[in-house]
């Protein structure tokens, strides 16, 4: 298309056929581009309508009373439709979690980073592999090779700090945001 190169030196309007065509090509491409972008933008409301709605997002935070939990016990509470594990750890469990060499961990994180008070471990009860609920909350449950939790779906083992130690899960159990309202109560969310 040598015409295209020439058209930069603009001949008077409508002079050569070739030039008209270039201008038409340009208009056509420009219109089609704007149309395509417009169609793309119009798709956004539909895509975004599938994201969590305002009422789902507004789900309140949950207060949990810790006073009834004995040392060595664990409870499961629901927050935003997800289970949260709260375990009151024994001295032995805390020491086991802190004795680990961080170099041995697939997702290195010290126990100190994962708790606010050493006694209380609060994690999401959702395996970071594909979202099953790991076993280990009840005393009769299998707790895996590291005495924390065991996910039966594809065999992930978590330790007493909720860290992944063995199996396909990529990350440690997530820690939800929570604060101690007082010594006996936490607020999750």
């Amino acid at each position, binding site marked *: 298309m040598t015409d295209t190169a020439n058209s930069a030196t603009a001949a008077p309007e409508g002079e050569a056929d070739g030039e008209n065509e270039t201008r038409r090509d340009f208009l056509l491409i420009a219109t089609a581009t704007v149309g395509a972008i417009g169609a793309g933008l119009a798709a956004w409301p539909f895509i975004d309508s599938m994201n969590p709605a305002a009422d789902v997002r507004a789900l309140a935070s949950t207060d949990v009373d810790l006073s009834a939990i004995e040392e060595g016990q664990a409870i499961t509470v629901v927050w935003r439709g997800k289970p949260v594990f709260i375990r009151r750890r024994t001295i032995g469990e805390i020491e086991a979690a802190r004795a680990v060499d961080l170099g041995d961990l697939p997702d290195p994180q010290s126990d100190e980073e994962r708790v606010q008070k050493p006694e209380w471990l609060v994690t999401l009860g959702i395996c970071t592999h594909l979202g099953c609920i790991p*076993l280990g909350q009840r005393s009769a449950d299998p707790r895996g090779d590291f005495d924390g939790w065991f996910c039966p779906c594809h065999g992930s083992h978590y330790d007493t700090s909720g860290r992944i130690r063995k199996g396909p899960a990529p990350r440690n159990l997530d820690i939800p945001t929570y604060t101690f309202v007082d010594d006996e109560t936490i607020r999750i969310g």
Partner: protein
Amino acid sequence: MTTRTWNNPIIRWIDYRLPVFSFMDHHLVDYPTPKNLSYWWNFGSLAGITLVIMIATGVFLAMHYTPHVDYAFDSVERIMRDVNYGWLIRYLHMNGASMFFLVVYIHMFRALYYGSYKAPREILWIVGVLILFAMMATAFVGYVLPWGQMSFWAATVITNLFSAIPLVGESIVTWLWGGFSVDNPTLNRFFSLHYLLPFVIFGLVFVHLWALHVHRSNNPLGIDTKGPQDTIPFHPYYTIKDAFGLGAFMIFYLGFVFFAPDFFGEAINYEPANPLVTPPHIVPEWYFLPYYAILRSIDFDIWFVSAKLIGVIAMFASIAVLFFLPWLDRSPVRSARFRPIYKQFFWIFFLVCILLGVVGKHPPNDPVFGGVEWFQYIHLGKITTAYYFLHFLVIIPLIGWLERPRPLPESISTPVTRRGLAAEGTA
């Protein structure tokens, strides 16, 4: 194309304006079909009929089903107990899904054996693979609807696959759920999609048949038809053969519906969904087992890519690789009848697919043979997964290059009439 003239004036009037009758005549009656098709060619029409059965039973189920987490399970139980013939309609739908996959898998292995994916049928084949993807999506969202324990946990595990995508994974999963876990918004949209997707499949089937009718059916010899002596009209020859096949198929299908309706199902799906308790052993429906085995057999990181992401990629790639098959197979000969080496590898591949299914069914760390502790399903899964990809990416290209095919017959009729094309005059 010779257009028939119609005697009936009403038909003639309509056909002049909207040529439906000529269309039917052209594609279902006069349609020239290779005369040597075997029963393996019945499964296409069976798949089409099964799709119609699924849509018909589904529409009636939807009249009684409630897509809400508080009512879904009970509404399905109500269909089973209170709705007139509800049990029949649901069992037809449930077992129909298994039949659909069975028929389509046979249909696909047929194509692999007889080289039906080769030129000029590449697009026909690619549309077929798209249909398989759409069927999988439909069956997956459908399985969530009864909101039993397996429904819920299948939904959780499968949607979580997308969290493996770097950076945007978590947002995609939240978007799929419409919340922060699998919940009511998820069930609602899955019902909407479950109603929509079968019609998308219907559209794809139409394109599939369109492409089919351009170059027409392949056949067990894998050679082109050379003229009218190689073909017979679709009606009555193949309409009757398809009808006979349908009868046999219905006996098989209804045998399950009436005598073993829960044969393919998991008992635990009759327990209502509980988001706080994962069942001890999660397994997908049988038709997903091989892919599930591939997903699970990747339990090692490669470099900085996580095992989870590689597993997901491998699982999707196991089907996507079929898109490239027409170009991976360089052999110009279609039918395995004339490909002595490919034929053997075809059967090995078939066996590997079955083994992958067996692996998907068992917990990864169970021993394959009782007593031999060190050989576990996870190991068998790794071997068969590796072989699956090796088959497509290495073995098939190599055979295409190294194999010496046996001589092809001159035409479809040559081996039968011995006089071959000469028979044309007397036919």
